[in-house]
């Protein structure tokens, strides 16, 4: 088990390094001059050149990469070209709301998706099954921003249950949780659908297995049989939870825009538009680390639900 954990942990380092290296070169391959994106086209050629020098963009690419790697090792990812603040500090300031939102939405997706999938599997072919599957298909099919606006109209405007915009007052956990409800539900819609559908098919497959029929024939209570079934269906579901988290972070960009919340997604978009390389690199680094870490945790959970991995 320890060896398994160590092998997974060691893989994190090359994965993250690979991702940031690809990000570094992909960003620079994009058309667009950061100096013009930042200063605007009314800036004089002198001002543009001064900024290029200040940002080190006048240096050859390999020198820039060398500086980036050196900074990465020293934990210094430079300053945002626009705000002139340490890039990592800016990223870390928006990380908590992003992680909270993604975390809550994944939790909602699990809590809603598992029972929906199980009920559908148990009532296969009934109207309940069809209804639940239509609802979950909608969760996948409708764009997140569409669902978001409909939720705002219904629950923030017509029934004034939740705020339409913002992330709550700083230091006031209750108001932050209140402001989190709608965005988390909206973000969870897709994940719930994926988990529900996967749970349904995994459960259906397991319920048809001989050992389940034997258990039934032996008169074991249905609740207990279900529990055995779910345990056996969990490994593929765990896999999809990791993907759901990554998708949640990605889709969070849209949710952040619709609900006017701060977050990593909006920050990355903003940095991309303005070719703010330092901020973008820091954002992508933190994003990739969080996705890799969540998947690592799930990898480490596998042995708990699947004895074959333990061996």
């Amino acid at each position: 088990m320890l060896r398994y954990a160590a092998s997974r942990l060691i893989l994190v380092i090359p994965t993250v390094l690979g991702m940031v290296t690809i990000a570094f070169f992909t960003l620079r391959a994009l058309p667009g001059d950061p100096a013009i994106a930042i200063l605007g086209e009314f800036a004089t050629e002198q001002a543009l050149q001064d900024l290029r020098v200040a940002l080190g963009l006048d240096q050859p690419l390999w020198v820039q990469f060398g500086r980036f790697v050196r900074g990465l090792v020293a934990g210094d990812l430079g300053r945002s070209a626009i705000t002139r603040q340490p890039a990592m500090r800016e990223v870390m300031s928006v990380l908590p709301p992003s992680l909270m939102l993604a975390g809550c939405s994944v939790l909602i997706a699990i809590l809603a998706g598992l029972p929906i999938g199980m009920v559908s599997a148990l009532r296969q072919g009934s109207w309940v099954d069809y209804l639940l599957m239509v609802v979950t298909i909608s969760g996948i099919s409708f764009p997140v921003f569409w669902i978001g606006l409909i939720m705002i109209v219904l629950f923030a405007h017509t029934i004034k249950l939740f705020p339409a915009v913002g992330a709550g007052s700083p230091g006031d956990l209750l108001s932050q949780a209140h402001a989190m409800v709608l965005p988390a539900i909206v973000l969870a819609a897709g994940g719930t659908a994926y988990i529900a559908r996967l749970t349904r098919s995994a459960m259906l497959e397991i319920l048809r297995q001989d050992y389940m029929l034997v258990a039934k024939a032996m008169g074991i209570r249905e609740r207990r049989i279900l529990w055995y079934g779910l345990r056996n269906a969990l490994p593929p579901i765990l896999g999809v939870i990791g993907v759901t988290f990554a998708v949640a972070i990605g889709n969070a960009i849209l949710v952040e825009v619709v609900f006017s919340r701060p977050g990593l997604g909006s920050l990355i978009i903003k940095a991309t538009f303005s070719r703010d390389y330092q901020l973008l690199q820091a954002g992508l680094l933190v994003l990739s680390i969080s996705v890799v870490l969540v998947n690592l945790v799930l990898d480490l959970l596998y042995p708990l639900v699947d004895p074959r991995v333990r061996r």
Partner: protein
Amino acid sequence: MAFGTRLKGLGALVGLVLAATAAQPPAALDGAGGAALAQQAPGSVLRIRIGSDVTSFDPHRPSTIENTSFSVHVYDGLFGYNLRTMTIEPRLVREYSVSEDGLTYTFHLREGVQFHRNFGELTAEDVKFSYERVLNPATASPWRADLRAIASITTEGKYTVVIRLSAPNANFLHALTSRNQALILSKRAIEQMGNDWALNPVGTGAYMFEAWRPGERVVLRANPNYFRGRSPIDRVELMLIPEETSAEIALLNREIDVFFALQSPEIIQRLQARSGVTVDSRPALISCHLVLNNTVRPLNDVRVRRAMAHAVNRESLVRDFFRGTKVLTATPLTPEYQEYTTEVPQYPYDPARARALLAEAGLAGGFDFHYVTVALAPYDQFPVAVAEDLKAVGIRVRLTVMERAAYGAARAAGTIPSATTCPSNSPNPDTLLRALVHSDGFPPGVNTARYNGADELLNAAQRERDPAKRVDLYRQAQRQIMTDVPLIPLYADRLFTARHNGVEGVLTSAAFWVESYGATVRR
């Protein structure tokens, strides 16, 4: 903003739901509200929606309309614009004089003006420091060119600043007014705080910086020692709400008080139909153009450019596409400028005339035209309508929509045959015309047309000190430009701001910023 495009269809659907609960009496379109200082209950908060995050508290750095809206709350210039008339009026200056030759400006500062957070009294040294900071290449200020007329800055005693220019410049006071390079920073604060100053801005303005929550809001608190009198409102929050439909609901719910820079024609119409909400609108100094590269064939033929101008149905663009939220303009300036004139060659919608002009130019069979625009609403939408008009007279249009930064770089490289250019302008007509149609604005500037036919007139206008003669020179320049048609003026913008009826006195600038000094709010 990019998401705004995708949300347009949904906006209509949401609109149905919102319209169903809307009250009928239409709210009046009026001016920008009053600015007299009024009484206000203690603890009052004014929440203003902004569409993009504030990216810098340093006014000398690159600016957006949101950054400017922040800066005008926190800093002052020697002069400010009266936002009703967009005329220049003294702020930090008590009085000033200009030498006979127009080269020496002497400014006497107000005494007793205090910087925020005990950073002391404003002195001539702060003014000198601020302007020199803009001029210093190490600052990389995009506004450096605005002060390039300055040859030297000296101080005489604590409250007098003397600025000498290298050549007479009748527009110089504009450069010292209201925003960006004009705003005065505390020398002591910057020297003491170093890099930390960037997150702890210190000015002399009506509001003091309190907090910035990136991606969410900027919080400002009333300056109790403000030299024009303490603002009635205790706190102003600039709240980031990129999505207009969300902002609309937030305004109706009174989660925000002012919906600044509202763009969507559908939302404007919905809010105008609401009771309890007022939509203010004012002409803006933003004009939007189809710029044609005059150095490539066949656009180098003035008959072809005139044909294109006749082919575009601008009345329909403004009336149908923008639902009357924009206005027509006959020149690169907007009707808001006192220098604007309609006594220029006009190009009314006339497809037959366009075809005739093309035939005259030997292009009866049409020609291939590459129309380039930027992926930013509405600039990636209305060109479709313009392209259809051009197609109707036989011009084969290939429309390319480029990502924002890539577009900026391509336009600066001057390699594109056309561009959609909508500069946000200062009330100084020289800034716009010099950038758009003077050889000073050749790429990497925004004169994609590479047009220089009005250079002499514009240079003469800049030197002319007699206001009436100067206005006349600018009008002559506009006549010359519209004779040569290096670009097709498509429309002039209007600035829309919605507020609930408990808000009074919020002012917006024709150059797209919002000020709340003197405003009151009642919930």
